[in-house]
């Protein structure tokens, strides 16, 4: 079987997620899809799996046109997607999950013995002899759950299986087991669409790779004809855009000192941010960047190491503690974590600083309004009134509202998590200018960005994280895109030589 997509276009309000992308997936091949965050990989996969309907373009299976309106349509044509967050019923057994919706039954009564036999046969075919069909899925490891999900696709006679970052949740031995199963599927003539950031995985398992960048198709190449360096270059592509504002002062004293801090996936992370400096933290999704920021902000427990803020020990037990110490976090998901969408601009900006306008707990509204207006004006939030609900604002203006809150709260160390995500190009430049102005005024900025040109363009120094650890700290001059990308992906020059 061969699935071909031609000239797929998917537009979302204000953004083209996929722009005339074509791809062929053949039975019996492992076809990797690679690209940075936001390159369009997940949109492409979702279209193939029937979860997203494209605005333009055609899909054919063995030359015949098909249209998928739902995942069910795609499944009925033999295309299955295995999501990163596996779709399993945790309170049911492995067998029940594998044969969900296809249980062997007579007159509506499930034949349990036949069900277990059938599930067993599928697992054995995949070489998974040890996984019991009677185990409750909720008690299984992530690897075993993933195997159950794959068995579910096999039991449904899938011809094309789409896997989204399947090794992201696996340890090394589990990865090896997964690859054996993928190999088995390939020999059985199943086509695999394999989406991954991990170069090791791609070079080990894939036959061909399709590279996407900014929603466009860059190229499709056999792995045998491409080197790692070429692949990095295809993925990053863009030249660093000029025009990021440069500092007008030399960095001052160390303000934020993070010393061998561990928290969640973060292991022994050490970094320093000085007054007047912008430090970018780069890394792949799951490298621990957001978790590090949350630990510094008191929003996640620190399990090891120490921090200092402006010379004093810093061990916040809550965001409120961190805020009192002069920290601010501009979270990655503004709408969910940054703003009370149904509240007014004024209320969102003053939320953190309310006690400063209050006398015995009663708010002086005039002072509140004046203070809020001072900062929304300074940041040029475009709105007819401060009483407008923030959900009615554009992404750029929403980010300015969050920033105004921290200005009003007198934050001196600002943690920006994906500061320009979902913000249009013009407003991005605004945000960059504001960030640099803050630094020039003596604030210390730690910036997490998955947009590599942005992260490198804004930064005075660059910290690279991989799998929870800080693997390099580079000065601006050293932080060349390809070098940083290689570090992010685990392709350090030394490792390459070995």
């Amino acid at each position, binding site marked *: 079987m061969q699935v071909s997509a031609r000239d797929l276009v998917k537009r979302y309000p204000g953004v083209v997620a996929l722009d005339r992308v074509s791809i062929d997936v053949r039975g019996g091949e492992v076809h990797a899809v690679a690209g940075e965050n936001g390159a369009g990989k997940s949109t492409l996969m979702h279209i193939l799996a029937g979860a997203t309907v494209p605005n333009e373009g055609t899909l054919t299976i063995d030359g015949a046109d098909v249209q998928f309106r739902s995942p069910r349509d795609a499944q009925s044509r033999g295309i299955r997607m295995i999501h990163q967050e596996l779709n399993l019923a945790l309170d049911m057994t492995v067998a029940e999950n594998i044969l969900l919706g296809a249980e062997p039954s007579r007159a509506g009564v499930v034949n349990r013995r036949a069900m277990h036999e059938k599930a067993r046969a599928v697992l054995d075919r995949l070489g998974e002899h040890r996984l019991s069909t009677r185990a409750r899925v909720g008690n299984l490891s992530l690897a075993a759950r993933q195997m159950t999900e794959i068995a579910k696709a096999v039991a449904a006679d899938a011809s094309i299986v789409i896997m989204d970052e399947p090794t992201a949740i696996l340890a090394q031995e589990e990865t090896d087991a997964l690859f054996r199963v993928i190999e088995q599927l390939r020999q059985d003539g199943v086509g695999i669409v394999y989406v991954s950031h991990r170069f090791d995985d791609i070079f080990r398992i894939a036959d061909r790779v399709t590279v996407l960048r900014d929603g466009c198709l860059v190229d499709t190449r056999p792995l045998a004809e491409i080197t790692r360096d070429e692949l990095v270059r295809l993925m990053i592509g863009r030249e660093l855009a000029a025009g990021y504002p440069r500092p007008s002062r030399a960095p001052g004293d160390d303000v934020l000192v993070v010393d061998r801090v561990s928290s969640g996936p973060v292991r022994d992370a050490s970094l320093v941010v000085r007054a007047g400096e912008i430090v970018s933290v780069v890394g792949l999704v799951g490298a621990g960047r957001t978790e590090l920021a949350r630990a510094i902000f008191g929003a996640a427990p620190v399990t090891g190491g120490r921090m200092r803020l402006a010379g004093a020990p810093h061990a916040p037990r809550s965001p409120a503690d961190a805020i009192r110490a002069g920290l601010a976090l501009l979270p990655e998901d503004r709408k969910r974590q940054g703003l009370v969408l149904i509240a007014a601009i004024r209320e969102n900006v003053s*939320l*953190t600083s309310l006690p400063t306008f209050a006398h015995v707990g009663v708010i002086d509204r005039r002072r509140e309004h004046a203070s809020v207006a001072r900062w929304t004006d300074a940041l040029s939030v475009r709105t007819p009134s401060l009483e407008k609900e923030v959900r009615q604002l554009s992404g750029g203006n929403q980010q300015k509202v969050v920033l105004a809150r921290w200005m009003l709260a007198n934050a001196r160390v600002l943690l920006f998590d994906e500061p320009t995500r979902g913000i249009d190009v013009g407003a991005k430049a605004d945000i960059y200018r504001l960030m640099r102005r803050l630094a020039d005024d003596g604030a210390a900025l730690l910036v997490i960005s998955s947009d590599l040109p942005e992260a490198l363009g804004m930064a005075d120094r660059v910290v690279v994280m991989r799998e929870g650890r800080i693997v390099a700290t580079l000065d601006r001059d050293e932080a060349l895109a390809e070098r940083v990308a290689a570090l992010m992906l685990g392709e350090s020059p030394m490792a390459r030589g070995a």
Partner: protein
Amino acid sequence: MSVRERLSWQRAADFVLILATIAEAIVFATIAPGFGSVANLINIALSIAVTGILAVGMTAVILTGGIDLSVGSLVALTGTAAAMAAAAVPRGGAAGIVALVVAIAVGAIAGMLNGSFIAYLRVQPFVATLAMLTIARGAAFILSGGRSIGNLPDSFGVLGRAVPFGIPAPVYVFAAVAMIGAFVLNRTVFGRRVYATGGNPEASWLAGVGTQRVIWLVYALNGLLAGLAGLTLASRLGAGVPNSGLQYELDVIAAVVVGGTSLAGGRGTIVGTIWGTVFIGVLTNGLNLANVDPYVQKIALGVVILIAAIGDRVAGRSTGGPGTGHGS
């Protein structure tokens, strides 16, 4: 002034409710004999006083995205406890004051328990307060041995039976609670934090709001108000009655919802709640006077709640968005 602009949707909703109340009153004045008399209007005010006091606290609870099902049982428990305390005061002692202190203390302690389970142990508000509903009811019966506690000193009856300037004292209590409640929610730091916590608990927590403390305090205050309502009712009845306050929680939630407060949290006002309470009070009273079958009255109330909920939906106020859980 810009605040007015923002409140316009709320004002519009209140305006609709006020118009509906007036229309309702006009209809009853024409079809129900005696509806428009001063005595009956005072009667309506008295009949809504206890649920009104409870509705003020419930508004704050629902603004945080929570619910408190225990208030009806707490009315019984606090009323019974207050009556027993008053009965134990020797003749000539300040039985009324003792009753007030006991009712408020018992209510506040129960509220603090609710708050602790919900804010710190993360029990869902529905479940935690459902448990308190049955526990408090059981405690009221055990405490009183299943009997009404009567034969109380005169001072016990002041709060419920005094009629200063021709208006029963419970109406004053309701008015005072409503005014204080509106002030606290609108003008204080705590009130703002209540709205923010309900509107988006996670974002509020990340903005430095102690969301757990806010939630704890809201339930504690709601318990305290339940104590005040329990004493007011017991005082009016002249006895602590362990099976009083049955299903009050439902009447109270109905009043808050009809008043336009979103169960998703973050949206609503005390003014709306007062009008919701008045609207339902007028409806019940008018239907009674018009000799409408009490079972039909129940159906009418259900229809009103549905209309309010649908109106809320249409106005796009309860978006069903964030704020349904409690922030960490």
